[in-house]
């Protein structure tokens, strides 16, 4: 009796405390976004609902919110696709071909993923500046792709490893080249894994801050995280309503993806964990 009571309490706790813990800040964000005055918790101020904050940030030309959104989506999508593709190529070679230094690739990439970004970004800035790539999308896409490679590689390797090598052998006997095998057989079979990878790298790139901060100085290539961090207000003082409105816009894409693909995302994470 004791134990089942305990179990019941645990479940109740989970059902109540977890969502509260996780979603409280967002609830707050929504409230402030849709309220005329951000300080409505003060006894003397009332809560008055309004859409004006959202309208303001979406339409104000000096804010470039749409540009930020566009940049974020573009950069994240391209780097996610590229990272997955390149990682797929490498994963294929690691799981199927014998060559000296085979273990070095996943291990090396793992080690590189632990490098602090700060020790990369300084010199990278100077490089980019000398190439005049600051404020170009390429300045972000290429590093993001590279940063996404470790994650992508480990997930793809674990997926490829589950595809029987006999399939390759059969295809080789049928006369296919390695590349053809990869594209016609392996990739289609590993599609769910590739999808997880794309999603995870997309999220990672979308959320990235330091590189975007250092490698962009105006809105042409700047991403949303930097945009919201830099936001000092549309007309001077810090208008929290506007900040929260931007926040709402900023998280919408990622939340949508999470809602639709949540199982894939969790699977991707799990692969990484259990394999690692």
């Amino acid at each position: 009796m004791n134990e089942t009571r305990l179990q019941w309490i645990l479940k109740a706790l989970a059902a109540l405390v977890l969502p509260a813990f996780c979603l409280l800040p967002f609830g707050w964000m929504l409230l402030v976004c849709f309220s005329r005055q951000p300080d409505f918790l003060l006894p003397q101020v009332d809560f008055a609902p309004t859409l004006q904050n959202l309208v303001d940030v979406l339409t104000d030309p000096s804010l470039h919110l749409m540009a930020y959104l566009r940049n974020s989506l573009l950069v994240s999508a391209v780097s996610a696709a590229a990272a997955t593709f390149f990682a797929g190529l490498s994963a294929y070679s690691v799981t199927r071909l014998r060559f000296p230094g085979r273990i070095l690739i996943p291990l090396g990439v793992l080690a590189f993923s632990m490098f602090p970004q700060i020790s990369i970004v300084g010199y990278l800035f100077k490089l980019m500046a000398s190439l005049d790539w600051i404020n170009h999308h390429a300045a972000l896409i290429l590093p993001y792709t590279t940063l996404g490679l470790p994650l992508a590689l480990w997930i793809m390797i674990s997926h490829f490893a589950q595809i029987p090598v006999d399939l390759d052998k059969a295809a080789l006997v049928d006369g296919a080249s390695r590349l053809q095998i990869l594209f016609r057989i392996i990739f289609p079979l590993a599609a769910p894994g590739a999808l997880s990878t794309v999603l995870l790298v997309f999220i990672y790139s979308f959320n990235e801050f330091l590189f975007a901060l250092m490698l962009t100085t105006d809105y042409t290539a700047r991403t949303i995280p930097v945009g919201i961090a830099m936001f000092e207000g549309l007309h001077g003082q810090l208008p929290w309503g506007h900040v929260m409105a931007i926040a709402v816009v900023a998280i919408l894409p990622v939340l949508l993806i999470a809602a639709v693909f949540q199982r894939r995302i969790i699977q991707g994470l799990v692969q990484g964990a259990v394999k690692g």
Partner: protein
Amino acid sequence: MNRIVIKNLQKDFMTLRRGRIRALQAVDLKVDPGAFFVLVGPSGCGKSTLLNIVAGIEKPTAGEIWIGDRQVVSVADKRFLPPRRRDVAMVFQSYALYPHMNVHRNMAFPLKIAGDSEEEISRKVHAAAETLEIKDLLDARPAELSGGQRQRVALGRAIVRNPRVLLLDEPLSNLDALLRTSMRAELKRIQRRMAVSTIYVTHDQTEALTLGDRIAVIKDGLLQQTGSPDDIYSRPENRFVAGFVGTPPMNLLDGGLMEKSQRKVKIDDIEDFSRTEIGLRPEHLRITTPDKGVWRAELDLIAPQGSDQMLYLDLSGRQIIVKTDASRKFIENKAVGIDFDPVNLYVFDKKSGRRIR
């Protein structure tokens, strides 16, 4: 006394897809103290569920269970003793050995939890290891052991506590045939020596007949018959039990075949066989010349089995198996006659499956 009494046990499951499933229904069982009781039935019949409920890992929907003079579970009285208070030991089909502990620690685990002293533990573990002949494996880890060795360790962990009740869930299923036969004998020997009330679950009816003092046959959560091995074998109460027990299985045929017999067979006072099914065990059938038998059939296949041989016959499109001594010689694709002693004929009601005779 460690008699186990199960009264009117019922277990329902709620599933998303198929609604409520009744895994066990109106189960009544008694296990005498020190007896070896076998629960046998096809996969999915609820036998493992029953075992889990006795152990306390699952809760029944209705009914009660007594171990000795303690009521261990009662839905009506809202009583439920968790496993650790029941003094029950269990061996799972997967053995469930703790992979991060060596054999000694695996076997010591329940004793450690119970709070025995170091010397007590050591003594009991060594005694159990002696009984199961695994003394030299005490330092090894489960991953290093063979299937048979793991099985012994699992058993050792169960007997080390000298429990009131021993529950075994298909413990021999994962072993190869040879090992299985030898382990069966050893299992019975150990159980006898310890005189612990035992419930053994299996899907293998040969095992059931060999091991059990008493057997219960279960199908789809419902008890079909309880009795001694001989009861079950010679006096099956319904069609299912008759067909389930015995290797090769009993030949079950439509009663209408009696009409098509070549000579009249007098079976008690049964005149109309049209609503019955008849059963004849392979060893009770005899081969004679085609015109002297009750029926005429064609010999399709001869399958030698050492000192016996199995004959597969075609009787008007139905397959019949006859078991006979290997010394008699037959020729395939020849017509033969089937004969039997009416005393060995089983008759079942076609609709209910119950045995009429």
